[in-house]
C-alpha cells in the first residue's frame, strides 16, 4: 500500500508531537517530521497535509502559539496553502499557532476558569466533509481530551457569523469547558485547506490509553476518526484513492 505522507512540524516543546506521529502511523499514514526552521518549499513539496501538533510550543511564552507562528516554516506553509497545494491542520496548540499566524480568524484567551486544565470533553461534528472530520457521521458526538490554559476561542461577531454561514464551524463542544464563544472547538478556512481543532485526538486512539468510556476506563478511541480523515484527505489529494478503513 502506498501510505500517504503527512508532515508534522516539530516545534520546540510541542509536547504532543510524538503522539501525533504515532497516531498518523496507526491510521495508515506515513509521518514526516518537519523542522520549524525550514525555509524551503521542497521540504513540503511532496506532502499534501501538514499537521501542527499540540502542546506548549516555545513554552506558550508571550501567548500560546505566538512564537511558533513566527518560525520560518509558517511562511512556507502559508505560501503552499495560497497555491492550493497543501492542507494545514492545527490540533490544540497548533490551532493557536494558525490563528496567531493569521491563517485562521479569531484568537484564544484564557479559559473561563483560568489555569491549565485537562478533561475529556464531548464534541459534536457539525460538518463531516472536512479534511479532519470526513470519517465521522454527520452530527456524531465524539469524546476527546481537551487540555490547556488558553482554550477559549473568540472572534468578532462578523467573523463568527461568516464562519457559521459558510459551514466553517466544523466541531462544537457539547458543554464548553474552556468558555469558547458559541462553543466553537473546530473551524475551517473557506477553501477547506486550513483547519484547527482545540482538542487532543491523539490521546484517544488506542484502547486502554484513551478517554474514559462507558465500557471501561481508557477505552474511548474517538480520536481515530480524525487521523483516518486526515490520511484519507492526504490520499485523495495525492490522487491515489481513499486510504483508511
Amino acid at each position, binding site marked *: 500500500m502506498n501510505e500517504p505522507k503527512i508532515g508534522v512540524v516539530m516545534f520546540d516543546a510541542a509536547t504532543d508531537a510524538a503522539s501525533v506521529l504515532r497516531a498518523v502511523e496507526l491510521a495508515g499514514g506515513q509521518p514526516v517530521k518537519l523542522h520549524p526552521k525550514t525555509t524551503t518549499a521542497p521540504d513540503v513539496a511532496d506532502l499534501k497535509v501538514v499537521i501542527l501538533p499540540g502542546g506548549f510550543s516555545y513554552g506558550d511564552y508571550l501567548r500560546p502559539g505566538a512564537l511558533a507562528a513566527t518560525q520560518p516554516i509558517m511562511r512556507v506553509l502559508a505560501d503552499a496553502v495560497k497555491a492550493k497545494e497543501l492542507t494545514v491542520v492545527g490540533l490544540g496548540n497548533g490551532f493557536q499557532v494558525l490563528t496567531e499566524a493569521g491563517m485562521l480568524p479569531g484568537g484564544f484567551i484564557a479559559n*473561563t476558569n*483560568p489555569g491549565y486544565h485537562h478533561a475529556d470533553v464531548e464534541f459534536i461534528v457539525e460538518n463531516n466533509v472536512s479534511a479532519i472530520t470526513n470519517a465521522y457521521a454527520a452530527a456524531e458526538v465524539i469524546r476527546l481530551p481537551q487540555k490547556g490554559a488558553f482554550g477559549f476561542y*473568540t472572534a468578532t461577531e462578523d467573523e463568527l457569523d461568516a464562519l457559521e454561514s459558510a459551514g466553517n464551524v466544523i466541531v462544537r463542544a457539547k458543554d464548553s469547558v474552556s468558555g469558547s464563544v458559541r462553543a466553537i472547538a473546530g473551524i475551517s478556512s473557506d477553501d477547506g485547506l486550513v483547519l484547527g481543532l482545540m482538542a487532543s485526538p491523539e490521546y484517544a486512539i488506542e484502547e486502554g490509553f484513551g478517554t474514559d468510556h462507558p465500557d471501561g476506563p481508557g477505552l474511548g478511541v474517538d480520536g481515530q476518526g480524525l487521523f483516518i480523515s486526515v490520511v484519507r484527505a492526504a490520499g485523495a489529494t495525492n490522487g491515489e484513492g481513499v486510504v483508511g478503513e
Partner: protein
Amino acid sequence: MPTIVVEVMPKPEVLDPQGKAIDARLPELGFREFSSVRQGKRFELTVDGEATAEVLDRAKQLAAQLLANPSTEYIAKVEVAK
C-alpha cells in the same frame, strides 16, 4: 541604556478571564473601591544605542507584529521610559 516600554491590553470587547478572576477576589480581600480589573502585559525593551524616533517606530512595529495579537489585544502604549 534607554528602555522602551510597550503596553498591551485585552480589547475592551474581548472577555478577560484573568482580570475577572482577580476581580472576583476583591470583595473578599476588602477592596471595594474597584469595580473591575483587566490584566494585560508590559514589555521593557532595552535599546542598543540611542532611543531615537526611528527606534521608537521599530518598537511600534515589533509591538504590532509580535507583542500584541490584533484579534484579541490592542497596544495601549509605546514610549521611551524616563
